[in-house]
């Protein structure tokens, strides 16, 4: 009797571990380590930046926290490795220094196809924009004809400006600087009419101007810079997991699940919410996680909208509008396939 009970318990535990077992070696490694290793930037406002106490914060950081929450129910089970733009891809692929590269990286075909890594989706739709002085009266890029534009040397921003102004038949003059702070100081002192870099960077740059409110960021963008996290190509199951953490963040926002109301939704929820929160189906288990994986993510980190507002939106110093990063239902581009 007692023996049979032990046997049954053993069998049961085997079954339950088997169902939580994934076929992802990366996930196994993360579980064994007890923490996720996450490659972030060397300091970019709103995306991944250490504060005075040394805690990392930002959209890219929160994405890693969401993965850790889904796996360990603990968003702090992450070790951050700072990477520079030069070494980020080798550090992920050959160096195997971390499991996720979440570092304001533009998704391009060449990077996706030939570097041995895969992008899982877009966490932030960025693009090159312009900042001008209020009193210049310019309200759109078309008004920049004949302007002097400050930028950094050796980046694609210079080429994008040439392309855009060339195709639109507008005159312009580029004033390129080696360092971003120099280019910005030149704009601030009035040596150029406009300063150009990525849209998100313009909001950060605005804080470094002597009077932020005297400057306006033009709404248009002249290039596509979709930023997204990447994983190594050799573990499709891990790639699925990371991709669906991103989709879960976006779906949670679309279905109105927030860190505030997630507990109350557990009892009364519509079928879509019930599937998202793991009350129906085995979606979490199919990723090698528990079925309440989205509950863990949303409770500890929030949904995509909360992450956005906290790090770069109205809850932050940057105050970036949702714009292209609004949900597709609100006229933006953020869209996630359904969980079903």
């Amino acid at each position, binding site marked *: 009797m007692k023996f049979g009970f032990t046997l049954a318990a053993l069998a049961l535990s085997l079954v339950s571990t088997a169902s939580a077992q994934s076929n992802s070696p990366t996930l196994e490694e993360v579980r064994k380590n007890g923490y996720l290793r996450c490659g972030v930037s060397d*300091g970019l*406002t709103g995306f991944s930046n*250490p504060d005075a*106490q040394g805690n990392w914060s930002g959209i890219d950081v929160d994405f890693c926290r969401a993965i850790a929450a889904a796996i360990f129910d603990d968003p702090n089970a992450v070790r951050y490795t700072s990477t520079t733009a030069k070494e980020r891809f080798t550090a992920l692929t050959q160096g195997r220094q971390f499991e996720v590269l979440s570092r304001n990286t533009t998704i391009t075909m060449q990077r996706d196809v030939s570097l041995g890594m895969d992008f899982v989706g877009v966490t932030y739709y960025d693009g090159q924009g312009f900042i001008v002085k209020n009193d210049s009266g310019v309200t759109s890029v078309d008004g920049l004809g004949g302007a002097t534009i400050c930028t950094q040397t050796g980046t694609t921003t210079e080429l994008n400006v040439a392309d855009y102004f060339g195709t639109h038949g507008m005159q312009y003059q580029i004033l390129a600087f080696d360092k971003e702070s120099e280019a910005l100081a030149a704009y601030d002192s009035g040596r150029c009419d406009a300063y150009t870099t990525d849209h998100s960077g313009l909001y950060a740059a605005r804080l470094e101007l002597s009077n932020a409110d005297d400057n306006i960021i033009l709404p248009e963008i002249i290039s596509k810079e979709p930023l997204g996290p990447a994983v190594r190509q050799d573990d499709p199951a891990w790639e699925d997991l990371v991709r669906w953490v991103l989709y879960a963040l976006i779906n949670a926002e679309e279905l109105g699940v927030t860190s505030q109301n997630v507990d109350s939704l557990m009892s009364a929820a519509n079928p879509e919410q019930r599937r998202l929160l793991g009350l129906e189906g085995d979606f979490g288990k199919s990723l090698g996680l528990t079925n309440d994986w989205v509950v863990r993510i949303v409770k500890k980190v929030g949904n995509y909208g909360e992450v956005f507002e906290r790090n770069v939106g109205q809850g932050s110093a940057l105050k970036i509008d949702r714009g292209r990063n609004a949900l597709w239902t609100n006229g933006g581009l953020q869209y996630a396939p359904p969980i079903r």
Partner: protein
Amino acid sequence: MSDATLQREPPGRPWRAVAFEWLRDNLFSSWTSAVLTLLSIAALVTIIPPILDWAIFHAVWSGEDRAACLGPGKGACWPFIASRWGQIVYGFYDAVERWRVDIVYVVGAIGLAWLMIPRLPVKLWVGIAMLTAFPALVYVLLSGGMFGLPIVPSTKWGGLLLTLLISLTGIVVSFPIGILLALGRRSTLPVIRILCVCFIEFVRGVPLITILFMASNLLPLFFPPELTFDKLIRALVAVSLFSAAYMAEVVRGGLQAIPKGQSEAAAALGLGYWRTTAFIVLPQALKISLPSIVSSCISLFKDTSLVSIIGFFDFLQVIKAGNSDPVWSTPNTAFTGYLFAALVYWGFCFGMSRYSAYLENTVGGGKVGAGRT
């Protein structure tokens, strides 16, 4: 006026005449030097006041966030440095564990000072302790995992701690390796000579960034997966080997300056190769190459800022990352950070340079032509 000055100057001469003579002899001895003097004065007058104005007189000295440093006519934003002080000194080291770093700083400073001040006794034993017990202490204290100390992964080490750790390790490890390489390059045994030449020429022909990059990303490919070294250890090895190659050439320069008669005389006395080298040739060679050795230490100290390329938050990178903190970003934050970094680097390098000048005057016996760095 002291007695000494009285003796040097003829009595009764007015100080104006003395000053006039000094100016005439030193600054206006010919019309070209007069022009150069005036130009230099003009340059100093135009450059220095605005810098002082910005860095001191119009600087902001206290404040909680960027609002304090914003506004027309405001200069350097020093409270930004104050707010980052912990990170500058310790990196991201866990706040409650920072006492461990403090111990390392204090023990290291006492040990170094002991070795550098000639009056203090038992140098040999202190030196042996600094080379054996101290590194062990640093390792145990900093990484933890032993004696109940919680583990602090090396990715959290940073700031001055990391800069000093890398440069001191580089200097201490590269010195003996450099000497061996230099001797090997002058060896009559072809295999040793060729190996040493290949190593030195390969490392000197490759930029430090490339070596760091290889150590950080390519090295793990060559090792079996069970055998992984910490990224910091790989970086330390890379920096040490890089600097050893340069050290080798510096020491070889010193070796070549020793006249052949020295070793011939030693051989005539019946000394073998090792004893000739250790007691006759090397002491003289090292004395000659002291200025260059210190130069390469100084340049290694500054080169450590390159480890930021492989994702370490050294002293400079901590300040750079601070610039992008929205709590502090103002037009002056970046420049304040860089000015502070420049002052700290200058302080360390100037200190090393003065100490080497002092050593040349004492150890080197004030030899003429030894030169000062």
